[in-house]
């Protein structure tokens, strides 16, 4: 699948005088794994929120799977999903209850087998009957990922997908996501601070600074262009060039 499944043109978000996202343009092709990289306040999460339709853009156009996300988001929401450590699932519900509710919201036909299958795949069966509030941060992240995969999304948006996970579990999650993508041909767009993760998973990296995309390419292209050894060094180059403005804007 080579056609663009996410198409963004002149996308802008302003809060009063503050420009959170500044007229960005990009496309993500079907089946790609793309990343938005940037310091805090660079505009990554704001961009993801607009793609999901949680946030209305101030200007620009945004289409997902050929649909205008401002006017027709409900035509595609069942074909995409999102996971972020910054939003929660209800902590007083058990894992199974949470997944059952979301399976029904996404219109999944046979709820129980699907929930069980995902719990087995993500190794969360042992605590299916425990409330979310009693789980560790790492366990909750896996449950959130299970929620995000319930509808077998064609587009998966991930904000810091391996934050709060042990290195071995994080590595397992990355492998799982890549296997999922290979099996389903899904498109993954993630926002991350983990450069090694981005370097390993992504074929298309967009670096954001102060609401704008300032560089883009494959990890290898970016490293070569900046004359550095790793993507992390490229990132630090760009962040330091920012002079800390991004972090101040985030505050």
């Amino acid at each position, binding site marked *: 699948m080579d056609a663009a499944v996410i198409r963004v043109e002149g996308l802008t978000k302003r809060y009063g005088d503050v420009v959170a996202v500044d007229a960005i343009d990009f496309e993500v092709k079907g089946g790609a794994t793309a990343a938005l990289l940037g310091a805090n306040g660079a505009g990554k*999460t704001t961009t993801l929120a607009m793609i999901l*339709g*949680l946030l209305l853009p101030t200007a620009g156009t945004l289409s997902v799977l050929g649909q205008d996300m401002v006017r027709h988001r409900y035509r595609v929401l069942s074909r995409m999903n999102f996971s*972020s450590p910054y*939003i*929660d699932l209800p902590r007083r*519900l058990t894992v199974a209850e949470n997944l059952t509710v979301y399976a029904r919201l*996404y*219109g999944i036909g046979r709820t129980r087998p699907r929930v069980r299958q995902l719990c087995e795949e993500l190794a969360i069966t042992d605590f299916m009957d425990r409330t979310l509030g009693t789980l560790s941060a790492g366990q909750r992240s896996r449950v959130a990922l299970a929620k995000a995969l319930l*509808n077998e999304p064609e587009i998966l948006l991930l904000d810091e997908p391996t934050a709060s996970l042990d290195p071995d579990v994080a590595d397992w999650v990355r492998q799982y996501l890549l296997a999922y993508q290979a099996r389903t041909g899904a498109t993954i767009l993630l926002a991350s601070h983990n450069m090694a993760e981005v370097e390993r998973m992504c074929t298309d990296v967009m670096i954001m600074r102060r609401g704008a995309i300032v560089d883009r390419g494959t990890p290898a292209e970016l490293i070569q262009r900046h004359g550095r050894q790793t993507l992390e060094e490229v990132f630090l180059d760009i962040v330091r060039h920012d002079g800390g403005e991004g972090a101040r804007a985030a505050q």
Partner: protein
Amino acid sequence: MTAPARELISFRRIGAMVLRYVYLLRGSWPRIIELAYWPTVQMILWGFISQFFTTHSSWVAQAAGVLIAAVLLWDVLFRGQLGVSIPFLEEMWSRNLANLFISPLRPYELIVALLGMSFIRTLVGVVPAAFLAIALYQYSVFDLGLPLLSFFINLLVMGWSIGLVVSALILRYGLGAESLAWIAIFAIAPVSAIYYPVAVLPEWLQPVAWALPSAYVFEGMRAVMFEGVFRTDYLLRAVLLNIFYLGLGSAIFLYAFRVARREGLLLKMGE
């Protein structure tokens, strides 16, 4: 994997949200007891007051139980409002709104689910108190007969309207406004003519009372109890006002949702 989500309203999604709140309620006995606690305490309190007034007030003596009926029906209104606002607050407390609204759930489907849950919570809260009133004071609110059903529905719907406006304000202004869920309704208590007729109010305040469905319900209740007459004119006015207020409440909630999308509030909600 998923069914098409293009239908305008999905009872499956509404059912999923009701299930979510039932799971929450089912998982905590203290929550269920809490639902019935205040209506029961109020009923016991006003039951004793009624017993006292029955021997000291000719007005109350004409219809023993008028104060108990009033307090039970007031609790229908209050529980109806809380039944909408509290489940909505649960979404805010658990930072779950963003997850809900990236799913195919429409905001008006959430509204229907909140109203459905309010109905369940109100029944759980008020019915035990009503039965206890029979045991303790030999007064059955069910003796009101069919009019009781119309009073119940009208007060419940009015509670929904207020609950939606309160939820809209919480969505717009965040958890700093959450206390509104418990106090907002008491602003209309003095003009709802719960325990006294509208005529008791100063003349300039009476039009305010007559603009509320609750005033018609409580006047209608007293008409049944004192005169044995069911005032269909009161019922009609209460129904029309409720249709207007429920439409207004829903519109305000949907407007607040749009503002929340514009301001990025759905991602920021939480404790």
